């Protein structure tokens, strides 16, 4: 908390700056309610995946989850195929939606648990394991769907997840915030959170201290998988159709968001709120460039620049440098207090 409060300040400042810049460029329409809603409904897909990546990274020992978007697509595709073979999306709209959500979340959970079991029990390096399962999930989705888009339609409940607002906020965004909040609470207030961060900091010490290492790993990847399942539901609800190759660019963007949020790639530290702010920052920037009518190659360049900036902030205590009055104590990051979320 102490060490990386600067990260959060920077993220909030960047978000405000981007909003201000957008307003200046578009003559205000960037801040119109409709655009804010439009951007808010675009964040959840990638934001959920980024939180999954963050959890895997926190587990340490080179933890990462590359299978996120593949699992999200598989959840959507499998659920659409299975549920529509039993129920009709136009007749039993409510039942269809509930069944769809249940199957998608279960698929995500099972897929994530498989990742966790492979990594914990067979001791496979996470990057290789999730790369393998990523291809397996994509392959399975291709087989199940025959390579075509699968129609989900707009049954009552799903359609409101994708399109409706609650008090002016898109429901998909509320789901994202709720999921993020739950995970943040789990990390801060439960033993699981403490175990995860300490294990990420020093896996060997964690084993000798008698932590349930395998349990924590399986739980972490299962959580990440469940988030992918939820992302799959939101994708299906918004796009009406699901397809195996949707969002192939999300893989790297999710990692980018996590790293920008100051999650330590070597494990042991990450804050959910930073990941949420970082996902929002990327969304604002990409919408901003679309508003400005700039090429999407500029966006890639800008994202890269933003990432480098954040790496510099994380390393050199830039906030303290710019505002000497607030210079923070560096070097206390390894303390358990860094589990603050």
């Amino acid at each position, binding site marked *: 908390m102490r060490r990386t409060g600067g990260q959060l300040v920077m993220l909030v400042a960047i978000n405000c700056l981007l*909003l*201000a810049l957008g307003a200046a460029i578009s003559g205000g329409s960037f801040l*119109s309610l*409709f655009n804010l809603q439009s951007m808010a409904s675009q964040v959840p897909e990638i934001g959920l995946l980024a939180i999954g990546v963050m959890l895997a990274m926190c587990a340490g020992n080179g933890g990462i989850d590359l299978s996120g978007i593949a699992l999200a697509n598989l959840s959507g595709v499998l659920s659409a195929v299975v549920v529509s073979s039993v129920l009709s999306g136009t007749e039993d709209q409510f039942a269809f939606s509930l069944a769809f959500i249940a199957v998608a979340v279960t698929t995500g959970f099972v897929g994530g648990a498989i990742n966790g079991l492979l990594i914990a029990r067979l001791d496979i390096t996470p990057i290789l394991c999730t790369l393998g399962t990523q291809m397996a999930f994509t392959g399975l989705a291709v087989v199940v769907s025959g390579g075509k888009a699968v129609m989900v339609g707009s049954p009552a409940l799903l359609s409101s997840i994708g399109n409706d607002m609650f008090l002016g906020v898109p429901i998909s965004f509320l789901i994202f915030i709720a999921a993020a909040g739950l995970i943040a609470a789990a990390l801060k207030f439960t033993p699981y959170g403490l175990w995860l961060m300490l294990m990420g900091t020093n896996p060997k010490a964690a084993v000798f201290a008698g932590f349930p290492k395998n349990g924590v790993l399986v739980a972490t990847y299962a959580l990440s998988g469940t988030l992918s399942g939820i992302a799959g539901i939101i994708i299906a609800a918004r796009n009406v159709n699901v397809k195996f*190759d949707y969002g192939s660019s999300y893989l790297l963007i999710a990692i980018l968001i996590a790293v920008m949020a100051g999650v330590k790639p070597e494990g042991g530290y990450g804050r959910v709120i930073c990941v949420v702010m970082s996902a929002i920052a990327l969304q604002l920037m990409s919408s901003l460039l679309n508003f400005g009518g700039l090429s999407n190659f500029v966006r890639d360049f800008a994202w890269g620049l933003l990432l480098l900036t954040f790496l510099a902030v994380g390393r050199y205590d830039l*906030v303290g440098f710019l505002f000497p009055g607030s210079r923070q104590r560096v070097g206390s990051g390894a303390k358990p207090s860094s589990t603050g979320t």
Partner: protein
Amino acid sequence: MKATTKKILAGSVMAAALLAGSAGVLVAQEKPVIATVVKISGIPWFDRLETGVKAFQEANPDVEASQSGPATADSAQQLQIVNDLIAKGVNALAVVPMDPAVLEGTFQRAMERGIVVVTHEADNQINTHADVEAFDNDEYGAALNARLAECMGNAGKWTTFVGSLGSRTHIQWVTAGENNAKQHPDMELVDPNNESFDDANATYEKAKEILRKHPDIKGFQTSAGNDVLGVGRAIDEAGLTGKVCLVGTGLPNPSADLLESGAITAIGFWDPQKAGMAMNAVAKLLLEKKEVTDGIDLGVEGYNKVSVKQGPGKGLLVIGNGMVLADKATYKDHLF
């Protein structure tokens, strides 16, 4: 967090809130905006389409026409651009969908907001006002295959490439090609529908694999704009120029060397410039609440007498006559 950082935090949040408050004053758009969104930016095909959008802009100063597209070939990225443009408040969208199915939900929301939606290369798009096609896709696929069969002497192994299995038109062309090849019982289709993702390098690698796997292969029918370049290079490097036939969608300028060397037998295309102009012309007609009727002249070469049918949804299907097949002898007439 120390007090100063808290102050900065609070200050920036307040500044943003102030800006948000003052944002009520919208700058009025005097001209209707037609936004063209392509599958991917920065490749020759869609660069050519952009020249059409620019030409349309010059000819029609009473609208504002511009083009954008994702930097990576991912339907999710294209979806984001379309979402942002809708939020920006454009009056019409002219989209070449990466994957029509993925865009349905967004197009539906756009149409509900009163935005005119025109698509291209997506004759199965349900939520669109009009889909503009350069030609009948089945006829085009059959014409490509007929040229391939002629070169192969109506016999031998052949294969097909598509941009992606989700690219509907590509699948239509190769399917029409397959149907055409059925007239020639000696033509044997092997490993069909290879995905190229419109990447010349990936196509080159894949074509090399196929040439290794089937040393006796005689023909390739390709679909995405860059496929002929990748496959052509593989044929050229394997020293099979003249022995293996290659007919596919491609642009004359990038294909010129390989056409000259004979690695590419013939290229088929429609001019994306004209297609871009036609899309924008239809969008403008719809913006002006004019009707698009059968046989109407869009004022664009190849689209002077379009056939208008009912599409799969509520929208129209506008089919022009813009097919071009060019080989070594004729490609110079269409240099772009």
